[in-house]
């Protein structure tokens, strides 16, 4: 995929094993921290990445993740794409339902990850593979302060 000019380049990480999942999580955490995401948003992003990368590994038979820092002039963001060339998702709507699972998890992979980011899209073609893209922007919420001495 070509990046529009003026954007920092993407980091591509293979997704082929457990250890790769850990590596994806670390890369997303580093990138999100560097972009100024708060701790809660970082945690949401890393968790979403973990869910989606595991989908790529378990259902797509492996593939790669692409982590791209974004800047739209007003806010900084992070885009994560998870690409596989596996069997694809036959019924996307069903796959996006809470509790639906074809693997061994809790069926929260796609639907759960979608709730952790601001923009979410799935491109899939039976027999050709699946690309899941998630984007989050740094929201300007003040650091939580309990106000207790």
């Amino acid at each position: 995929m070509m990046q529009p000019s003026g954007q920092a380049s993407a980091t591509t990480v293979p997704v082929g094993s457990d250890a790769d999942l850990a590596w994806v999580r670390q890369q997303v955490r580093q990138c999100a921290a560097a972009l100024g995401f708060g701790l809660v948003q970082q945690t949401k992003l890393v968790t979403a990445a973990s869910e989606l990368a595991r989908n790529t590994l378990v259902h797509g038979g492996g593939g790669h993740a692409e982590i791209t820092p974004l800047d739209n002039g007003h806010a900084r963001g992070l885009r994560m794409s998870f690409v596989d060339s596996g069997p694809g998702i036959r019924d996307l709507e069903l796959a996006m339902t809470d509790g639906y699972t074809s693997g061994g998890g809790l069926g929260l992979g796609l639907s759960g990850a979608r709730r952790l980011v601001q923009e979410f899209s799935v491109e899939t073609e039976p027999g050709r593979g699946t690309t899941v893209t998630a984007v989050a922007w740094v929201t300007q919420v003040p650091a939580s302060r309990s106000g207790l001495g």
Partner: protein
Amino acid sequence: MPHDQDATASAPQLVGSFLERRREQIAQRWADASLFRSVFTVSRDEAVEASKAVVDALSDVAVSGRLEDTTAPGYEPVREQLGRMTQNRARAGATPAGIADEVAALRTPTVDLLREEFADPTAPQAQECVLTLTLLLGTLRLVVLETALDAGAEMIERQRQQLLEVATPVIKLWEHTVAVPLIGTLDSARSQVVMESLLEAIVEQRARYAILDITGVPTVDSLVAQHLMKTVAAARLMGAECIVSGIRPAIAQTIVQLGIDLGSVLTRASLADALAYALSRQGIEVSRAQTGTNAR
């Protein structure tokens, strides 16, 4: 004909070199215009220096030929300065449109100076130069307007954040018991802040009980109810029990009518009831002191 100028030079180049040659005089005149004068109140020299920086920027842009381009690199050195100026004017109560008018007021003194350059100010070349300068100042006006609008948006954002912070204090009511009295409308951003501050306070205070008091919340719709339930669930995951208090009768009715199931959430009528519950669960008894012991 302008002094020692090539008759074949283009109007933008002529204007560029005019701005460079006459920057001192232009800056002196601009320093008296309200845009600069009202910002640089401490010393006039400062106003002159600031004016010179803008004249230099315009000269650069003129030579580069990007007369109508607000993103021309020539503006970069002065963007920050313009930003500070517009913020200053905005704080003094000037609207973005008012600030733009102040930029427009820079045109007349500058065009007057430009006209003096020409033996015949009505010659086509002179008129073309005046048009070029007008165009250039029009673009400057847009650049300033842009920064003014940005500054306004920034200010609103800053105020919104300050409001978010002050509106969500977490209070320690008792040992291991914290409370957030919520006042006003709960939107997503605020709910997020409430949730985070409450959970942080639970860790800091090693709280067993956390009370969300919604006495001051005017309405509870399904979204607000969802936020409350999420906070309760997150507190529970951390090992604390959450109590929602202060559900007024009207709100209780709405919740029932909307079909929202708050069944899993522990509720109490008032903050006092919630505190009493939290205390009794921790084995703390509150009783009236003996008359006589508090007589003095």
